[in-house]
């Protein structure tokens, strides 16, 4: 040992010389990274949002009119109705999604139902498709020529003597069903996390005290998940309130805020009214998000550190009931995907039922066909890669760097903001911001030409809009993973004179790889399916699959539209499989670290 000590001393002086400059270099390098995140979020979130808000105070011609757009909105019944409609459909859809999601989550966490893995995967099925498809499938089931409406092509008449049944799909009914379907996966996810975070000892104590099953449910289970329920409520409300795809397809003449914004902007070219309605859409969304955020913070504070996990025993009657319920819900989702597939293959619905791939040849239709599909694929891939870098990078920099605390806090707050922004709002804000030739700051009489103007109508802008639209969820996922790492890793690494990049590449990133993959998968799937963020930003030379679906549906080409949806679903399924393989491979490796 002593000779090794001597050997170390030799390099000591040279190591110490220039220590101060190195220290400053590392500090400023870290500062530069924090600054980069700050600029990224300011340019892509704060400034466009500011532009949108200010635009809502001007009229069509660009004259300042104060709150006139808003007074017009609230005084004209035709405009105002969209707000009450939006509220009505989101609340009703939530009233369906919440109990169903809760029951499904309860079955998977609190009973010994067989096939939990399969059911868990099935619950996520609605996320694989754009919400446009929810509407299209509903049309094939309940629309004017739908399976149910027409009595299964007369089969019901022949077998049971009943003709079809018309539920009056177009309008509120259709939107509510589609939104309930869309909200189901996140509601289920939130509640299954909430239900699995419990302390088994509470139940043992209650049983020992002789409490009835119902009393235990009322006094322990429900209070235990109350934050989860509130959170699921808000998430479901927000997703239904801001969705554009489903109302566009099945809304008919029933106007909601999202479709109104689209009509103002695309139909009437009234951008400032579009901005005003966007603000009206934004306010309840942001409030709901804020409420949810505050509640979640309280929830995380309330979980006991040393809880004993609950493991449900075997109860045949209960488990059978749970199985029936889960199987029923899963069957609905299967039928949903199956009808989509069938409708895309049928030659001429409902007259010529031969199957074939005629509708997958998009030559005869508008929208962009395969070019649109491959653009979407590229966009989703770029978004996944860049999303991983930016969301994980932002979380890493803001969580692990200790320099410039104020700037970091500012960035953290900006990182949460995108979750409160509906896709349409982002899209519209980006039109204003990136399409502007320049900005004049009247107070100081300065005109700055817009350096980002060149991005307008490019793939890069589409990817950027996705990066921001899906930033918050990914940022939080990465943050959770990073928080699980010992804070002293940085100190140890520094004390061993290793640069922070070495710790990042050797330890932090490898340990967080599951979260990074999850983020990539999430970005990919959401970018494949999103319509609202990109519908204002695509250009004729750069068609996008989800937009193509909307345009084909507009043109009455329903079958090719649903064929395109199926392409998206299949692509997402493949992505899901790849993600599954990657994570299971990763788990094998990770198990080596964790197995005793």
């Amino acid at each position, binding site marked *: *040992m002593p000779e*090794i000590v001597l050997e170390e001393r030799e390099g000591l002086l040279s190591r110490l010389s220039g220590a101060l400059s190195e220290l400053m270099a590392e500090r400023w390098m870290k500062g530069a990274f924090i600054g980069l995140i700050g600029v990224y979020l300011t340019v892509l979130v704060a400034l466009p949002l500011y532009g949108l808000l200010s635009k809502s105070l001007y009229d069509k011609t660009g004259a300042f009119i104060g709150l006139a757009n808003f007074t017009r909105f609230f005084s004209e019944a035709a405009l105002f109705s969209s707000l009450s409609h939006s509220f009505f459909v989101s609340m009703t859809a939530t009233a369906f999604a919440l109990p169903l999601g809760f029951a499904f989550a309860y079955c998977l966490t609190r009973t010994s139902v067989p096939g939990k893995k399969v059911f868990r995967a099935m619950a996520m099925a609605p996320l694989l498709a754009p919400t446009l498809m929810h509407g299209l499938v509903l049309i094939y089931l309940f629309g004017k020529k739908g399976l149910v409406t027409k009595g299964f092509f007369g089969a019901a008449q022949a077998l049971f003597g009943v003709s079809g049944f018309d539920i009056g799909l177009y309008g509120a009914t259709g939107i509510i069903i589609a939104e309930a379907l869309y909200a189901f996966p996140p509601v289920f996810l939130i509640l299954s996390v909430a239900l699995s975070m419990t302390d088994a000892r509470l139940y043992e104590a209650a049983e020992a005290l002789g409490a009835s099953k119902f009393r235990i449910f009322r006094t322990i289970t429900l209070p235990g998940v109350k934050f989860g329920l509130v959170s699921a409520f808000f998430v479901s409300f927000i997703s239904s309130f801001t969705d554009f795809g489903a109302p566009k397809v099945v809304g008919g003449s029933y106007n909601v805020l999202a479709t109104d914004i689209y009509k103002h902007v695309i139909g009437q070219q009234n951008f400032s009214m579009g901005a005003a309605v966007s603000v009206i859409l934004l306010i309840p969304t942001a409030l709901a998000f804020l409420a949810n955020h505050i509640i979640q913070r309280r929830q995380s504070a309330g979980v006991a550190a040393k809880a004993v996990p609950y493991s449900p025993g075997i109860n045949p009657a209960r488990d059978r009931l749970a199985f029936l319920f889960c199987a029923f819900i899963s069957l609905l989702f299967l039928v949903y995907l199956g009808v989509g597939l069938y409708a895309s293959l049928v030659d001429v619905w409902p007259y010529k039922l031969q199957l074939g791939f005629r509708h997958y040849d998009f030559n005869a239709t508008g929208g962009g066909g395969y070019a649109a599909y491959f653009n979407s694929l590229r966009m989703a891939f770029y978004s996944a890669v860049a999303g991983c870098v930016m969301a994980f990078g932002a979380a890493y920099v803001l969580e692990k760097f200790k320099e410039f605390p104020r700037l970091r806090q500012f960035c953290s707050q900006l990182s949460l903001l995108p979750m409160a922004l509906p896709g349409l709002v982002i899209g519209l804000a980006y039109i204003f911001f990136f399409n502007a030739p320049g900005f004049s700051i009247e107070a100081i009489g300065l005109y700055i030409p817009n350096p980002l103007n060149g991005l307008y109508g490019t793939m890069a802008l589409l990817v950027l809009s996705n990066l921001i639209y899906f930033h918050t969820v990914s940022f939080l996922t990465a943050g959770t993973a990073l928080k699980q790492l010992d804070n002293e890793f940085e*100190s140890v690494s520094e*004390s061993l*004179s290793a640069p922070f990049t070495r710790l990042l590449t050797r330890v932090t990133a490898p340990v967080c790889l599951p979260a990074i993959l999850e983020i990539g998968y999430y970005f990919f799937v959401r970018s494949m399916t999103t319509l609202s963020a990109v519908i204002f930003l695509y250009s004729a030379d750069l068609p996008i699959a989800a937009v193509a679906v909307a345009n084909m549906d507009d043109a009455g080409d329903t079958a090719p539209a649903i064929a395109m949806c199926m392409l998206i679903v299949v692509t997402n399924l493949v992505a899901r499989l790849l993600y599954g393989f990657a994570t299971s491979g990763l788990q094998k490796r*990770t198990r080596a670290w964790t*197995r005793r």
Partner: protein
Amino acid sequence: MTSGREAQNAHLSVWGVCKNFGDFTALDDVSFNAAKGEMLCLLGPSGCGKTTALRIVAGLEFQDAGRVFINGDDVSMRPVSKRNIGIVFQSYALFPNLTAAQNVAYGLVSSGRGRARSRERANELLALVGLPGIGGKYPAQLSGGQQQRVALARAMALSPEILLLDEPLSALDAQVRIHLRSEIKKLQRELGVTTIMVTHDQEEGLTMADRILLMRDGKVIQDAPPDKLYDQPATPFAASFLGSMNFLPALDVGDPKRVGFGRVSLAVLKSAWKKGDPGTCQLAIRPEDVVIRAPGAQDVTYAGNVLEARVASLEFRGPLYRLTLRLVDGPDDCPPLIADVSARLAGRLDLSDGAAVQAIFPVELLHVYAGGL
């Protein structure tokens, strides 16, 4: 407290360090030295500033005022990476995805050695901490004690000037802890590395340290070798933090060799006086220093300070009995006196509740502190 010359001779020297976190004063003018190869223990209750002091020595935290010298160099503004120190954290902070050998080699590789040489050196270090052949295992596959030693090997990999141990044993169970106490101490002696250890466990401090720095509320209360700290605690806090201590109310009667105690007066050594105001004072004696005799027994060893007492209760503790005594002649507000007697003596005296005994306070073991209880 510390002269400049002294500090330059010391291997580690901390001068007048202050640190505030908002309104909270974590360190208030803390100074200490450590000689080359010395093991210094920062001991104190939680919140006393000991961990902050360690982090400032490490360069993980920067002081508001004061300076830190290592080997005569002013390192006050240097970050941890430029101080050549090794740290073992309470959580060990072993990288979970790297094997034990890779963990140990982590700093070696970045210091620019070849991969093969680093691996060789890592295995040497693992053998040194008594873990030969476990290099290929991941931290999760090792026991707590093994993880602790891997962390130690990693900290020692770059032959640091100073080794810092932050509550190194607190995450382990009692058996392993006692074993590792002597292991670490032995290793530290062998390597001759100057070591600062932070702990709230008085036993750990007493058994492992060459010198203890007792801290409270961001201040150093006493800086002394363990035996001196135990035998001559500077303040009532120092007296009660290490081991047990009886505190009894007494009166300063103006005589440096006597204090008033209820209806009697007791002899004290002049040197036992800790400076303070005249008036009330407190007597302090450790339970094991109280001598218990049968009533009426004449003992030539202890001429004075004999008090009549009754046994209020007694508690069997294996090798000894712990007695709770009521002093017959003590002041009215006198708390019960705790005294330890060997089980053998207790048997000989046939002690039981209510029994009368003599409690003797040997004059050289009696401490006096100024101020009331």
